[in-house]
């Protein structure tokens, strides 16, 4: 009996600490999940006189990828996005965040362009609405325009295979 109480206290503390080990404190759960995607209308990178609006994507499953040329991690995930864009499994919209148009265009010309269109968020105001804080970030938006997933940091092949694509396929099937 003398050992039971300390043992229980130890077990409780150990359980809490153990569960904390696997967590990434830099990943903040997004309050946007399950909520309508913040709407925006912004000029496109390819043709600034044309505008991209989130309302154009109604009825389609799509990804929003927030990126910038000054973001090193964006370069890491880029080849994977190019591959995904080519596969035609899901449409990706790019949001070029607080960047320079010339370097952004150059980046896409050099590394490939996975996006159906790239919207330009020069002052980062749209980024704030999406709760963006760590480049790159990728969102999955369903046909109703609801945010279903937020991925912070570069997308790895594993993230794509286990998290993003299964969800995308599931969402594509629902009408």
């Amino acid at each position, binding site marked *: 009996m003398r050992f039971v109480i300390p043992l229980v206290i130890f077990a409780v503390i150990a359980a809490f600490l153990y569960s904390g080990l696997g967590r990434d404190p830099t990943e903040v759960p997004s*309050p946007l999940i399950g909520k309508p995607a913040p709407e925006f209308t912004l000029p496109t990178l390819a043709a600034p006189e044309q505008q991209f609006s989130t309302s154009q994507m109604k009825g389609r499953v799509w990804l929003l990828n927030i990126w910038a040329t000054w973001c090193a991690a964006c370069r890491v995930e880029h080849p994977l996005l190019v591959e995904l864009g080519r596969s035609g499994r899901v449409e990706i919209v790019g949001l070029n965040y607080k960047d320079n148009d010339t370097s952004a265009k150059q980046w896409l010309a050099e590394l490939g362009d996975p996006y159906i269109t790239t919207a330009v968020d020069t002052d980062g105001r749209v980024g*704030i609405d999406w709760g963006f804080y760590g480049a790159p970030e990728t969102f999955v938006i369903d046909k109703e325009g609801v945010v279903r997933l937020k991925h912070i940091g570069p997308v790895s092949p594993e993230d794509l295979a286990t998290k993003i694509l299964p969800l995308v396929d599931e969402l594509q099937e629902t009408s």
Partner: protein
Amino acid sequence: MIGRMLLLAGMLLTALPSHGQSVFAEYKFENAEQQSDFKELTAQLRCLVCQNQNIADSNAPLAQDLRREIHQMLTSGQTKHDVIDFMVQRYGEFVLYKPIMSLKTLALWFGPALFFIVGLIAIWRMTRRSAQVSVAEPDRHALAEARRLLDNTDSRDL
């Protein structure tokens, strides 16, 4: 010696973070209330890029943008409450250094008090037990044995 101490004190004083003031100098307010609201909000909202700094202290570009946003909201007549809602809607409750009281944060709010009370009870029980031990009746046999030994030494020495 005193001169050197003064020099050190002076160096420490100038090394104190001074950007807190520059943040406020950057912005113009219509009245003192807006300015104090701005000060309060930027101090109690977390910068998500650096996480251990508030929006007032952080030099991260996002913190700069958020300061601009908060300033704009306040000067356009929105309340502190509106600003907090705006931030929580976008970044979640994590941005609040002072968490909202809810079922999920109960442990956070009352955990420390609970631990304190548990600690007090533990100390009280432990001290009561040791007090009981010290006032316990001494063993009668041991007492007799001690007396016998004492008596023996007395007779031998004398």
